[in-house]
C-alpha cells in the first residue's frame, strides 16, 4: 500500500519533470521523484542508500541543476517548441523499451521466488564492506570525484577567461 | 593570530551586557511615554494658525490671502476667502479665511508657508503624537483644530516668538501713530495731500 503511494509519487514526479515547460518547475518535480525513490529505498530496508539518495540528489544534484538553469537563463523564457523534431520516433523508442522491459519482468523467473525475510544491512556492515572488500572501488570513486571536481572547475574557469 | 580580535570583541560585548545591568548611565534609551527628552527649540512638525487674545475666531491673524496655499509644494493647504470683512487684531477691517484646511498626511513640514506669510499668521507646531484611527478625516485639520494661541507659540518657540511679537508691536505702534496722526489731522486741518499717500501705503502693506 505504502509502496504504491510512493511509487505513484515517484512516477508523477518523473513525468512532471520531463513534461513541464518551466525548467525550475521540472527540477522541483525531479526532487519530488528523488525523494519518493528515497522512501522506496527505505521501505526496501536500505536505510543508508535512502538517506544518501536524499543527501546527494536532493541536496546536491538538484541544487547543481538549479544553478545551471539560472546560469543559462532559460528559466524564464518558455520556448515555442519544447520537444525535439524527431519526437515521434523518440517517443516510440521509449514506449517500446518500456514494453520490452515490462514483458521481460512479467515473464522472468526471478520474480516468482518467495519473498525472503528482510536482510540486515547495518552501518557497521556497510562500513566494513567499503573498507575491506570494496576498498579498491572506493578509492577509484574518490579519484573519479576528484577528477570530476577539477574537470568541472577547469571547464568553467577556462571558458570564463576566454570570453573576457 | 586568528581569533584574537574575536575574543576581544566577545569580552567587550559581555562587558556591555553585564554593565548595562549595573551602571544605569550606560543605558541611553529613554522610556518614551513616561520619560521624554526636552524638545529642541528649532523642532517643527506641522503648521498651525496663530491667534491673539482669548477668542480664536476673533483673534485669528490669518487674512485669507492664500499665498501659503499657492506656495505650498505638496498642495496640502485649502483656503476659502470670506466674502465680508472683520476687524483684525489691530482693529483694521480685513478678510478672514472662511475655510482653512491642512491635510497633514500630505504636508511635508517644509515651513515654506511660514516663510511666505506676511502676517505672521501661520507657524510650525512641535506636536508629534498625532496618530488617529481615521486615515483621511482624522488627518485633515480644519480651522478650529489649527488655531492655537500666541501663548502656545511663545511656549514652543520662545526666541522666535519674541522676535515676531516685537515686530508686530512695532508695526502696531506705527499704525497707531498713523491713526493718531490722522485723527489729529482731522481735528486740526492741514494739507490733506501729505497724509494720503502714507495711509495708502500702509493699507496695501
Amino acid at each position, binding site marked *: 500500500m505504502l*509502496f*504504491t503511494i510512493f511509487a505513484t509519487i515517484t*512516477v508523477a514526479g*518523473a*513525468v512532471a*519533470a*520531463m513534461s513541464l515547460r518551466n*525548467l525550475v518547475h521540472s527540477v522541483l518535480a*525531479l526532487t519530488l521523484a528523488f525523494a519518493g*525513490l528515497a522512501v*522506496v529505498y527505505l521501505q*526496501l530496508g*536500505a536505510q543508508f*542508500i535512502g538517506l*544518501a*539518495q536524499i543527501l*546527494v*540528489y536532493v541536496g*546536491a*544534484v538538484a541544487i547543481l*541543476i538549479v544553478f*545551471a538553469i539560472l*546560469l*543559462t537563463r*532559460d528559466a524564464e523564457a518558455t*520556448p515555442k517548441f*519544447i*520537444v*525535439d523534431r524527431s519526437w515521434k520516433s*523518440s517517443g516510440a*523508442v*521509449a514506449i517500446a*523499451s518500456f514494453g520490452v*522491459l*515490462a514483458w521481460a*519482468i*512479467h515473464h522472468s523467473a*526471478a*520474480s516468482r*521466488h518467495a*519473498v*525472503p525475510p*528482510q*536482510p*540486515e*544491512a547495518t552501518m557497521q*556492515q*556497510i562500513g566494513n*564492506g*567499503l573498507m575491506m572488500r*570494496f576498498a579498491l*572501488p572506493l578509492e577509484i*570513486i574518490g579519484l*573519479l*570525484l576528484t577528477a*570530476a571536481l577539477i*574537470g568541472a*572547475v577547469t571547464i*568553467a574557469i577556462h571558458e*570564463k577567461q576566454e570570453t573576457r | 593570530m586568528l581569533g584574537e580580535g574575536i575574543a576581544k570583541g566577545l569580552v567587550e560585548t559581555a562587558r556591555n551586557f553585564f554593565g548595562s545591568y549595573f551602571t544605569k548611565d550606560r543605558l541611553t534609551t529613554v522610556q518614551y511615554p513616561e520619560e521624554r527628552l526636552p524638545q529642541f527649540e528649532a523642532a517643527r512638525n506641522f503648521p498651525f494658525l496663530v491667534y491673539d487674545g482669548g477668542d480664536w475666531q476673533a483673534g485669528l491673524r490669518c487674512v485669507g490671502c492664500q499665498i501659503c496655499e499657492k506656495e505650498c509644494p505638496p498642495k496640502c493647504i485649502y483656503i476659502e476667502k470670506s466674502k465680508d470683512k472683520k476687524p483684525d487684531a489691530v482693529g483694521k477691517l480685513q478678510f478672514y479665511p472662511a475655510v482653512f484646511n491642512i491635510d497633514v498626511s500630505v504636508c511635508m513640514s517644509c515651513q515654506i508657508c511660514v516663510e511666505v506669510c506676511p502676517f505672521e499668521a501661520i507657524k510650525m507646531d512641535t506636536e508629534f503624537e498625532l496618530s488617529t484611527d481615521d486615515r483621511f478625516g482624522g488627518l485633515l485639520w480644519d480651522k478650529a483644530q489649527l488655531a492655537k494661541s500666541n501663548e502656545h507659540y511663545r511656549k514652543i518657540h520662545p526666541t522666535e516668538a519674541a522676535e515676531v511679537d516685537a515686530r508686530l508691536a512695532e508695526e502696531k505702534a506705527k499704525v497707531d501713530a498713523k491713526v493718531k496722526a490722522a485723527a489729529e489731522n482731522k481735528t486740526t486741518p492741514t494739507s490733506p495731500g501729505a497724509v494720503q499717500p502714507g495711509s495708502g501705503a500702509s493699507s496695501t502693506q
Partner: protein
Amino acid sequence: MTSLASCLLLSALLFSIGLAGALIRRNAILVLIGIELMLNAANLNFIAFWRYGPNPEALTGMMFVIFSIGVAAAEAAVGLALIISLYRYIKTADIDEVNSMRG
C-alpha cells in the same frame, strides 16, 4: 504488495520516462535530468535485487548503488559544467541548435 516485480516495474517505468525525456526534450539540462532518472532506475533495480535476491549478506547490490550515486554526482557536475560552457559559446541550451562543429 511490495515485491520484486513491482519494484522492477517501477524501475522500468522510471527508465522509460527518463529515456523519453532525454530523447524528446530539446533543452540540454532536461536531457541531463532524463539521464539522471535512468541512472536512478538502475539504482532501484540494484536495491530490489539486493533485497529479494539470493545472497543479501554480501551487500553487493548496495555497494554498487553507493558507487553509482557517486558516479552520478560526478556526471552531473561535469555535464552541467559542459552545458554552461556550451551556453557561453552559443548562447543557448537548446541541443537542436548545436549542430555545427564550429568551436
